[in-house]
């Protein structure tokens, strides 16, 4: 039983990793790319909890990929990001009582105040697309953390790409 649950979690991890992988684009083929997505996407589903995430829960949402990535100093949704947000919309329609907060984040290569504004743009870009897909605007809050909460460490392009993101959190 125990090993069954563990392998279910492992499957979940693998799934999350696979879904994040295409987002990294061609540049992220190097070292570290395989391990980086696992850490942030599974933070709310620690391995000590030997149960699969409940349907409609934060952990369940994270399994479909909780973030979309952006180009440097940009806030428009890339095609891969639009597909991800469409999955968010389908999930939200399945669980109509759930609310999201979309956090906008930036890499460390901008100034603090400008990045707060840029993060707000990124969060709102994802929100606007969700609303256009029929999600009630009141179900989606936004906040910007600018460059204050990077997802991964490292002053290099592959880390910066992982950190330029809108990350949706189930409230």
């Amino acid at each position, binding site marked *: 039983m125990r090993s069954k649950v563990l392998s279910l979690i492992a499957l979940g991890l693998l799934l999350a990793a696979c879904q994040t992988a295409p987002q990294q684009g061609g540049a992220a083929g190097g070292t570290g790319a395989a391990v980086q997505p696992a850490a942030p996407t599974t933070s709310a589903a620690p391995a000590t909890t030997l149960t699969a995430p409940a349907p409609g829960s934060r952990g369940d949402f994270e399994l479909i990929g909780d973030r979309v990535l952006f180009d440097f100093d940009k806030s428009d949704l890339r095609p891969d990001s639009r597909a991800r947000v469409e999955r968010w919309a389908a999930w939200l329609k399945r669980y109509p009582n759930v609310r999201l907060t979309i956090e906008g984040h930036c890499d460390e290569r901008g100034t603090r105040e*400008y990045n707060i504004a840029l993060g707000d743009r990124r969060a709102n870009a994802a929100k606007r697309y969700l609303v256009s897909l029929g999600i009630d605007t009141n179900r989606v809050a936004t906040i910007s953390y600018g460059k204050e909460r990077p997802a991964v460490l490292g002053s290099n392009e592959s880390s910066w790409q992982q950190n330029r993101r809108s990350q949706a959190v189930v409230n």
Partner: protein
Amino acid sequence: MMTLSSRPLPPPAGFPAGWSLGRRLVLTGGIAAFWGLSQRMAAAEIRIDITRGQPQPLPVAVSTFFGTAPEEAQVGADMARVVTADLERSGLFRPLDPRAFIQTPAALKAAPPRLTDWRQINAQALVHGNVEVQRDGRVKVEFRLWDVFAEQQMAGSVFTTPASNWRRVAHVIADAIYKRVTGEDGYFDTRVVYVSERGPQQRRLKRLAIMDQDGANHKFLTTDERFLVLTPRFSPTSQEITYLSYVNNRPRVYVMDVDTARQEVVGDFPGITFAPRFSPDGNRVVLSLSEDGDTRIYLMDLRTKAFSRLTSSTAIDTSPCFAPDGRQIVFNSDRGGSQQLYVMEANGANVRRISFGAGKYATPVWSPRGDLIAFTKITEGKFYIGVMRPDGSGERLLTESFLVEGPTWAPNGRVIMYFRQEPTNERGQGGRTRLYSIDLTGYNEREINTPEDASDPAWSPLIP
């Protein structure tokens, strides 16, 4: 605030009053500095042109302030140390090693200085004084500044103050010396508010902290590390700061009285308010409001609570800063496609772009003198701190690094403080973040000592 009374101390009998004479280190327009020697001795003029090289700092002898009782002697020694450190850090003075001094503090107390003794060790200026604890427990501090070659007293004062205030008096004395020698106001009797940081970058813990300009009297202003605090700025008129706090995960602008630690949210806006700065009269705060992805600049009156919108583009308009006369505001905006500096009237009219160099320009801060705007520049993967005139001309870059950001001016407009962050590797090593100061000329870059990592410095005005 602690009381501090002072009066001038005339020169000893037999010495001319040198109030309007004496030598002076002249700092013109932030570009050139030179020694204009007193003509009394008909000595050759020593000239320093800091546009060409490191300025030659003035050799100064700071003697331990004399005290009879052990407690007075201790305060005297401590004060001389603080004055020495202030002068040295400015980069404009070269304090001489006290072990070379010939005349003792006691001898300086008993009679006017034997200036030949000080000429012998090549001191050009001499600072000495004495400390006396009065019957009411307060201390009386006397100090004198001598032009060693002109044989003139250049400055002298008597201060009376509570004993616990000795450190401030030392800074006031250092300011008086700086002013008498350079002709410019000092900046030693000031404080710095900043963000103290620790912990891993993904979950960085941040607190507001305040310290004297030299790092002494450090204290934390916020203790709750669950919520981020960012970008504090001093009021030009009071001991208040304004800053961004994520209290209850709502990023909003607050004002805090640093003496009472009482804080209050500025306005109740629907979106994120951030990037606050006081107006020169201290009565208003100019800030950014982000709503639905657009970031505009607003002005909030702290007394009437009235607010007005100053910009209306769908761009990012942020980091606003008033000119010291209150008539104009500089800010950065990406309305033209990339982040650049713009100046507008205080009511939002007549917006014009002032930065046209390669790269992006951010965090403009108007000098308290009004003559320059300091900024952060990002180009070809590097960050710079620079200055330009308010019309955008005369750009000069003072320092460059992987990441330098957030300039703030000393109240005399001569020194800029900012923070520098080192790169981080994948294991989270590195990322050291510290405050630095640099002279307007690009010389004398110094790290500021802080207990933890530090960012977002803001320099106070001279303490009233």
